[in-house]
């Protein structure tokens, strides 16, 4: 029973690219070692922050999508808190949300499919209805 989490953190802007890579791979190795799976790592680039964080106006955003148990993410958070270049982080649990979105999608699909079959039968009758006036249905001769 694995939960999916999105861990987004901000790294100070004056960090070099390779240091960032090192940090990311270190975190990833630790997470996979602890039994979770890092589904995706996304570097969202340097962005201007909405407010001052530890004296910085800008930061490099990184997003981890982790699938695992709560303790692993707890430990990951602890590491982020301790790591000096990381200035802010947030963890959001997303598996429930994804489940809900899947359900909505399936509902929409089934609704569309159901309407699709009904529309198909209507479509077969439509040419007949539009050719003659809608008032004349059974064996309507040209009533123009």
């Amino acid at each position, binding site marked *: 029973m694995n939960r999916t989490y999105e861990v*987004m953190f901000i790294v100070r802007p004056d960090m070099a690219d390779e240091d960032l890579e090192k940090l990311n791979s270190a975190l990833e190795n630790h997470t996979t070692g602890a039994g979770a799976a890092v589904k995706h790592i996304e570097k969202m680039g340097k962005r201007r*922050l*909405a*407010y001052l964080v530890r004296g910085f106006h800008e930061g490099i955003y990184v*997003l981890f999508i982790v699938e695992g148990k709560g303790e692993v993410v707890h430990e990951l958070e602890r590491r982020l808190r301790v790591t000096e270049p990381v200035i*802010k982080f*947030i963890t*959001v649990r997303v598996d429930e949300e994804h489940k809900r979105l899947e359900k909505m*999608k399936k509902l929409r699909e089934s609704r569309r499919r159901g309407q699709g079959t009904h529309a198909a039968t209507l479509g077969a009758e439509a040419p007949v209805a539009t050719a003659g006036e809608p008032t004349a249905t059974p064996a309507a001769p040209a009533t123009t």
Partner: protein
Amino acid sequence: MADETPRSATGPAAEGDAGRTGRPGGPGRGGAGGPREPRKYFRRKKVCKFCVEKIDAIDYKDYRLLGQFIAESGKIVPRRLSGVCTPHQRRLGRAIKQARNIALLPFASSRP
């Protein structure tokens, strides 16, 4: 009570006593024009943007979409002004608060 009758001859006749309390958010056209318009109990039809465009996921990372629902001061726009339906407003509020925590949106901007 006799004082009220000469007022109806001169000023706007349609307003009742409730119009003078200056309740904000009148018939949907803005509170400033309230006392002059007759007090109707319906609002101009405002639709929920998320319901219309069928946006299911309100993501905290999508700061451009969320930014449409915050005021200049950074406050979350109330439902009666933005026209969002209740379940979407709740999700929107939660997403905005998450975005604020990760510095994608401000808590408070400079007030005009």
